[in-house]
């Protein structure tokens, strides 16, 4: 779910035939006032951060003149919402809205369709009108049927403008497909006083996996916007940089958590969930979540291990995987033990490794030579987690 900022999203939508308001970015209140003047004073000021429901959060304001725009921008700039700082506002010309409607498109993994949701009642309270939403499923191998779209908008109570709204829906779906989007939400999709359909509010998320074939979209993606409620931390950004090095094999994921004392260096996707639960059940407090695998190189393991160990308060390290199908345990052992050595940790720093699979005889030797408590196939993942917590308690009680 890589999100774009609203003005970038609108520019892409306008290239697909949708009408969007004119607008300009401003990073100071003065600049916002100047843009407002250029629009003749009345305008809309919106905090330019990649989240939905800004209207409800007071991050969208209608302004009558440039003074109002200056005040609105001044209030928003520097404010934090969901721990995301507002660094820019979007100042847009005021649209003479006659009626507000709703359109969203997403991927339905179950029905294998594009799910087009429309409602005659757009605006900030769309969730309260959930029952008014009409769903149109569109097979990926077919185009949106115009008649079906007209019927849907008519059913949504927009019979008067159903034809133009259906055209806009077709444009939106074409954009959704061509941009490899995962979510497009247009709210409101307005009818203005000239009976045009205008995209007043837009949220666009695209598929990270498709960015390689979307060279125009890729640079517009807001870094860390897949994080639901806060921007990336510095340690998380370091892991993003580690992953960006395409010369290194393997994948690394890292999520910094509040507090905690156990450095969590685990994989794969399912085992890391199980291992984290097991630590918590045993009374442990992990300082982070991580997940690495895909037969990583020693350097990638080392880099991730350094990030895990660098978080303040980390007083022990838990290294574990499911029995590996292709990840080489000896390489994991070299990366981890080199990181421990370079981090200059005290001898008492507990490290438990439960690493079984490809080349684990060699891996065991490397771990044990570095003083790591190595556990093999005869120790279950849950037992390994319990041992880790016991080691933490033994060190803490000294």
């Amino acid at each position: 779910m890589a999100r774009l900022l609203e003005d970038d999203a609108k520019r892409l939508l306008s290239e697909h035939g949708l009408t969007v308001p004119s607008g300009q970015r401003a990073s100071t209140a003065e600049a916002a006032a100047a843009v407002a003047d250029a629009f003749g004073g009345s305008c809309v000021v919106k905090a330019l951060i990649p989240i939905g429901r800004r209207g409800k959060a007071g991050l969208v304001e209608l302004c009558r003149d440039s003074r109002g725009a200056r005040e609105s921008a001044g209030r928003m700039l520097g404010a934090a919402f969901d721990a995301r700082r507002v660094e820019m506002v979007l100042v847009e010309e005021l649209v003479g809205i006659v009626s507000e409607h709703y359109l969203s498109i997403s991927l339905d993994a179950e029905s294998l369709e594009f799910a087009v949701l429309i409602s005659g009642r757009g605006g900030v309270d769309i969730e309260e009108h959930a029952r008014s939403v009409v769903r149109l499923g569109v097979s990926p191998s077919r185009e949106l049927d115009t008649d079906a779209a007209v019927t849907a908008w008519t059913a949504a109570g927009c019979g008067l403008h159903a034809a133009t709204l259906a055209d806009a829906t077709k444009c939106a779906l074409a954009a959704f497909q061509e941009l490899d989007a995962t979510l497009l939400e247009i709210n409101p999709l307005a009818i203005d006083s000239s009976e045009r359909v205008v995209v007043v509010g837009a949220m666009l998320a695209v598929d990270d996996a498709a960015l390689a074939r979307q060279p125009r979209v890729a640079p517009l993606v807001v870094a860390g916007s897949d994080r639901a409620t806060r921007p990336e931390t510095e340690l998380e950004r370091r892991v993003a940089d580690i992953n960006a090095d395409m010369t290194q094999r393997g994948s690394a994921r890292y999520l910094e958590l509040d507090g905690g004392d156990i450095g969590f260096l685990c994989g794969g996707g399912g085992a890391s969930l199980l291992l984290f639960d097991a630590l918590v059940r045993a009374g442990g407090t992990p300082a982070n979540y991580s997940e690495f695998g895909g037969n990583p190189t020693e350097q990638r393991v080392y880099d991730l291990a350094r990030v895990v160990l660098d978080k303040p308060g980390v007083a022990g390290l838990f290294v574990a995987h499911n029995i590996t199908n292709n990840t080489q345990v000896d390489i994991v052992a070299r990366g981890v033990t080199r990181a421990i050595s370079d981090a200059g940790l005290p001898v008492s720093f507990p490290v438990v490794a439960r690493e079984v699979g490809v080349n684990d005889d060699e891996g065991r030797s490397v771990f044990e030579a570095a003083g790591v408590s190595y556990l093999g196939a005869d120790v279950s993942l849950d037992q390994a987690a319990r041992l880790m917590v016991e080691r933490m308690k033994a060190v803490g009680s000294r």
Partner: protein
Amino acid sequence: MTLFSDSGVMIQGITGREGRMTAEHMLAYGTCVVAGVTPGKGGESVHGVPVFDTVLDAVAALGAGSIGVSVVIVPPLATLQAVADVVQQAGCDVVIATEGAPRHDVLRLLAIARDAGVAVVGPNSVGVIQPGRRRKLGAIGGDRPDRAFVPGSIGVVSRSGGMTSEIGLTLKLAGLGVSAAISVGGDDAIGLPPASAARLLQAVTGTRAICYFGEPGTAFEEDLASAIAGGSLTVPVVALVAGTFTESLPEGTAFGHAAAIIRRGSGRPSDKRRMLAEAGAIVVESLDDMASAVAGLVGGAG
């Protein structure tokens, strides 16, 4: 359905690094790999397996019906074309190992397969294994499948490829074995969701119980519970749903697999466990408990 049979196996992308390694390990285990496909590499061979430029060439050379299943190990952006080719030109079942194919492509390829009546496991599946037949489709078990998988009467279905093997290992250490195991893939858009995979395993001869590994996100566990409650799944199911800790973290964050994401209150492991338990599954919290629960169901000689 040719996933569980002795039919010939094709590997699309056999000349790549992963493709070569997977082919070697599949052959060493005893799998009947009859053909490989890589555009532009026709005429070569990999570990004795002939390579063809197209699926059509492979079918023409080996004869219709000689290929029962294809394992797709191609780059993410080539996945849609590879699956479209095999569905249209060979009409055989497919196991997709590739991870990270664009979501629009996955939607399209799954729709193509569904319309053609072809079974697809994955994408992002580590594979399918039948220890009793010494047949594996994909990297599952790596170079030493016997370390984790021994023949037996337990079916394994897992949203995590790694945990498919770890459960095999857990069962082995408990003196039990596996009839067949399916890694369904870590994404939310997959061809063979857990409930369907479990129904397939129930039909594999000798399966007396199913071990299931679930994760946060999707409605897969809810659907599995419905299959049990609705009576289409009658063998006993022992289920573990990992990721309880994710419930106390902000919604919308993905953990491990792309699909392991709680959104707007749906997809919580605690709800999934409750529904599975209400449907009649034995819900466990750890692999240790899973092993003892299964042993209790089938006795020592599983």
